[in-house]
């Protein structure tokens, strides 16, 4: 594995009504990490710590080789940050913003900016106050992408976008990481977006990282087994069983440690395995959060 571009080790931050607890996180260079959590899970806090805008109480943060918050200025030269609550100056045009950002970043790519203008159907001389929400998000993304940052950090970038705008945005993100040197960390509570473009997934809930791994491992490990049981069957309890729902002679077992031999464990006790189904990322996310909340109620 190449040097991670983002590293969190034991990061904690306490607020009066919220505790971010012992966050460990790594994003390899060239990777896209989807950071999934319900509202209020701590996604934005993690991202603000990453950007040096919130100082953690404990732990170490390194981004692009810089200690954060101390090296935030140097790190931010190569970070493109976008957020659902980020707005541009209403009273001026997109062209002014492009000139402003261009004057700061020598890496600004004007021909790519022009391409994005066309692709996103944006007018450079239009004032920002006349933009729709989707246009505002796309304009902000244009300003970030045309800088050619090494790391893109996006906090809920697709929130409030219509399906077409969302697809355009996700396509553009996919294009960014064609260059192996560029990485993306993006938070969302929309698992569909994350599943589409991420190669690493991290789940967060109530300030704790619940799981973090590459997407394929996530999807391969989780399975739903549909069983038919003879009366009085006692099911085995292999490690990784997250839930078992029985109704008469039918049973559904969900596991997060599926192996090719798992079905034979159930066949051995007389059960008929009628189906082995993969789970969607959303189902995996919900199951992970529920299991965590059962183990550690608030």
């Amino acid at each position, binding site marked *: 594995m190449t040097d991670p571009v983002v590293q969190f080790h034991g990061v904690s931050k306490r607020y009066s009504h919220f505790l971010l607890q012992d966050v460990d996180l790594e994003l390899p260079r060239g990777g896209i990490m989807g950071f999934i959590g319900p509202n209020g899970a701590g996604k934005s806090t993690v991202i603000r710590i990453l950007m040096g805008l919130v100082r953690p109480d404990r732990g170490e943060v390194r981004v692009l080789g810089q200690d954060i918050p101390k090296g935030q200025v140097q790190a931010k030269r190569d970070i493109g*940050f976008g957020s659902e609550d980020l707005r541009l100056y209403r009273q001026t045009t997109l062209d002014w913003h492009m000139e402003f950002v261009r004057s700061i970043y020598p890496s600004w790519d004007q021909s790519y900016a022009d391409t994005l203008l066309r692709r996103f159907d944006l007018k450079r001389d239009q004032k920002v106050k006349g933009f729709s929400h989707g246009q505002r998000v796309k304009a902000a993304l244009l300003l970030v992408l045309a800088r050619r940052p090494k790391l893109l950090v996006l906090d809920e970038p697709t929130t409030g976008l219509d399906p077409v705008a969302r697809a355009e945005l996700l396509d553009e993100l996919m294009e960014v990481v064609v260059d192996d040197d560029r990485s993306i960390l993006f938070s969302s509570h929309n698992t569909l977006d994350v599943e589409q473009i991420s190669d690493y997934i991290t789940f967060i809930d109530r300030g704790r990282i619940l799981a973090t791994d590459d997407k394929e491992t996530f999807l391969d490990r989780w399975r739903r087994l549909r069983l038919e049981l003879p009366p009085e069957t006692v099911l085995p309890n292999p490690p990784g069983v997250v839930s078992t729902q029985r109704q008469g002679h039918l049973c559904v077992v969900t596991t997060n440690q599926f192996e090719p031999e798992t079905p034979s464990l159930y066949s051995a006790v007389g059960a008929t395995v009628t189906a082995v189904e993969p789970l969607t990322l959303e189902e995996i996310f919900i199951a992970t959060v529920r299991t965590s909340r059962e183990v550690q109620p608030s």
Partner: protein
Amino acid sequence: MNQEMLRRLVLKDWHFNRTAILICLGLGALSLKVLTLPSEGAFYAGSVLLISVVIGLGIHLVISTVVYERKHQTLPFVMSLPISPMEYVVAKILANLSIFAATWTILCVATLSVIWASPGLPNGLLPLAVILLAELFAAYCLTLAVALITESEGWTIVMLVVGNLFFNYFLYFITHLENIATHLQSPVAVWNRPVWWTLAAITTTISLSLAGTLVAQTRKTDFL
């Protein structure tokens, strides 16, 4: 300090406030014209307009450059640029002080020149004019400090109200201070000890408010 970024952020605030600066200078010129008209009513009207222009400029700057940057959510855009929270605060202080001081200085010089050159206005008013304009500068700095330290629209408005109420009290107090009041109608400006002490107190207030803002920023752990 990242001087190039500070310069760009200061220029950005100058750019966004250029219309307000021109309006204030225009209204300031109008108030000075009214001030010189040969009637007592015009003198008061001109004075009130001039004071209102300076107060209005201060309110506009603090609200538009600090409060609205948070309220209109443009702060995340600025903070995504390669600057630290401390550099952001320094840039805000520099932008605000340079815009306000430039406009204030023009209005101040123009006011003193008008008083000095107008036969109908006694030069004894010069120290009072300097003190009142300096107090407005201090009130502006205090409001800016409150806005940057508290990051709160509510507290900024409270400070604006307190500052304006205090100005009325200060005006009454200073024009009834014997060593100043007795020289107001004098044909020559009297720069006596009470005048200098008052100006020193105002200068100290300005310095403390700005230093306090920077100290408060070093103690903050969360910025956004």
